[in-house]
């Protein structure tokens, strides 16, 4: 279990983290979602014991990171944002080096390295220098190197930056598998779809504070963001008539009605029938699902990639 209580961190006059608190249960995948400069990496660096918070408290499996850095390091695996590998060494040499820092027995390390290389699909290219790899392959080795000592908790700091779709998918599948096997995961990203796909709970971080956290549904509720059923009709519908008939919030522009719904799947049929009954010929239907992007926009007032 990870407990973060009111941590703060400043660099000179700039306050990067302004009192963040959250807790993560064992085996959970927690996402930190926010734009660049929101404080995600600073939070990860504090969690990974790279530097302590100016104030506040972080405990990992009951260990205070200020007093038990070495013990905490043993149970943490960190995948940095950079491709932190020695490009002149082969993938195999990199794995032996990074694993060797954790004092793993040689035979065990070799076995683990082989396993992980197979898992990230690079067994057949393990003896090539990392500098010859594609961006996606480098990212996969970058991830594999963090798993050599079989950590209980994995911190991933934007691990898919500049990755091709194939590698991205492979990384997602690996993270999902690790999480399924019981590994606790903290995942920072500014890609909504990644957080939506991988994370059980999400903390939305902006300007050094967590503005909201919870499951995706909880975040939708908190932000009061709804799905929108878009119906393009042969003529412009009457807004108040349609709204009272469907008992839903309706906005109309030109020939299109935008109908807000908490459960678009359930309301879709009712909306189509309602429109037809009212004499509006429906030409086209679309559902705009409430997503993290809308939630983020609603909660922070800005686009995630601002």
């Amino acid at each position, binding site marked *: 279990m990870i407990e973060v209580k009111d941590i703060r961190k400043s*660099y000179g006059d700039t306050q990067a983290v302004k009192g963040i608190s959250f807790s993560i249960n064992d085996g959970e995948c927690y996402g930190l979602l926010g734009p660049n400069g929101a404080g995600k990496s600073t939070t990860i660096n504090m969690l990974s014991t790279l*530097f302590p918070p100016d104030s506040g408290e972080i405990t990992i499996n009951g260990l205070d990171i200020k007093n038990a850095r070495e013990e905490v*390091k043993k149970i*943490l695996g960190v995948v*940095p944002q*950079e491709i*932190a590998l020695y490009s002149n060494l082969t993938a195999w040499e990199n794995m032996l080096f990074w694993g060797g820092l954790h004092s793993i027995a040689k035979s065990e390390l070799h076995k683990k390295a082989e396993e992980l290389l197979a898992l990230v699909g690079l067994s057949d290219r393990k003896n090539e220098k990392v500098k010859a790899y594609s961006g996606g392959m480098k990212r996969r080795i970058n991830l594999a*190197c963090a798993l050599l000592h079989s950590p209980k908790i994995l911190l991933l700091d934007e691990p898919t930056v500049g990755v091709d779709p194939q590698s991205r998918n492979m990384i997602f599948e690996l993270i999902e598998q690790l999480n399924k096997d019981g590994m606790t995961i903290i995942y920072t990203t500014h890609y909504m779809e990644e957080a939506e796909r991988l994370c059980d709970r999400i903390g939305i971080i902006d300007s050094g504070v967590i503005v909201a956290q919870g499951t995706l549904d909880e975040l939708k509720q908190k932000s009061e963001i709804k799905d929108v059923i878009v119906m393009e009709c042969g003529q412009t519908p009457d807004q108040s008539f349609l709204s009272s008939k469907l008992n839903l919030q309706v906005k109309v522009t030109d020939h299109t009605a935008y109908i807000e719904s908490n459960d678009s799947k359930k309301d879709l049929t009712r909306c189509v029938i309602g429109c037809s009954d009212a004499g509006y010929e429906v030409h086209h239907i679309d559902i705009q699902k409430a997503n993290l992007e809308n939630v983020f926009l609603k909660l922070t007032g800005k686009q995630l990639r601002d």
Partner: protein
Amino acid sequence: MFKILKKELLSFLKDKRAVMLTFLLPTILISVFALAFGGSGNDDIQKIPLLVCDQDNTSITRQTISDIDSVKMIEVIPCSYDSGMDLVTRGKKAAMLVFRKGFSDSVSAMTSFPCDLHYDASQTQEMGIIQSLLGRSMYSSMGKAMRNKSMKMNKDSIVLSIDKQYPGMDKATHEMVVKNINKNFESASSGMNTDAQSKMKLNTVSVVSAKVGNLGLVQAVAGTAVMMLLFSLTGMGGGLLDEKEQGTLKRLLYSPVHPAQILLGKMACSIIVATFQLAVMFIFASLVFHLQVLDKIVPLSIIILATAFACSGFGVFLATIARSRAQLQSMSTLIILSMSVIGGSMVPTFIMPQWMQNISVISINYWSIQGFYDILYRDLPIGGIFLERVCVLLIIGIVLTLLAFRFFRKNVLSLD
């Protein structure tokens, strides 16, 4: 075209490093080289210090020393025999002139010339100048003393002989005769006879081994080796900055490795590479240029290790105070070239002005090259002066390593 020119100039001026490399670096290097070899442009004559030990301490030796001191290019430094020998043996001064006990009596009797010039054979140029100037000054000074003595003896014997042959000579005539004799003696030959000159040959004694190696070769190998070592180790130290830039340093810090271990690991690697680099250079010089190293393996290994340690400390220290590779490159070029000039990597220190010789001790090059001289040229045994130089190199290495640790924490680990 004008727009391109304007843009190029603007880009150049905004690149502080490029501007520094273009103007500041050459200016500083020209200053260092000029001060080392050309002086400050005025006509002041650079005096060569000459230690003088006067064991006879008579009016003749004092007069001779004063005459030597009046030579424009020589600066007499009085000293005791032991302290003078120590300074010459260490290579701090080129030579010591010793007037042995009984010098004046020997000169008066024109029997011998008990005066020795103890010198450091590695300082060939200074020695050449000293010997040439000393010869001229001392022949003149001693010749005058000898002439005065012999003339006085001859005059006295002639006057005595006249007194014996003409006992009744009146006082006025006697005075006139003596005056004429004096006048004739004073206008007599001003030169010194060949016999006296042969007796006045200065006895020169090298304070270092009788077996003298090839100074030029030792200078070329040691000077170049140390300078190149400083460059290559600074490059290796720069690996720290690369690790910071690439994120591997951060990843190392995530692992159960203490930050001090990272720096120590880098240093250990530098020391090993440096040791091999120096060893290879001396083996090459031995095989190709026949530099005698085989019988000096132990002292050579000691000075190589000490040099490797000091240079590694220097490389890591520079890397920890630099903010980027580019900054490290500019800084190291400037510092290493300056150290190499004043420390004797490019030319021997003894041809430099005295004040530059005095500041040469702040460079690693000086202590290392002098250590190599001690073994390969002066043929000094392990101990004494040689060990002192080794200790200085070790102290430099320790101080730079400690400073590197401090700046590593402050600059590198800040990861900002």
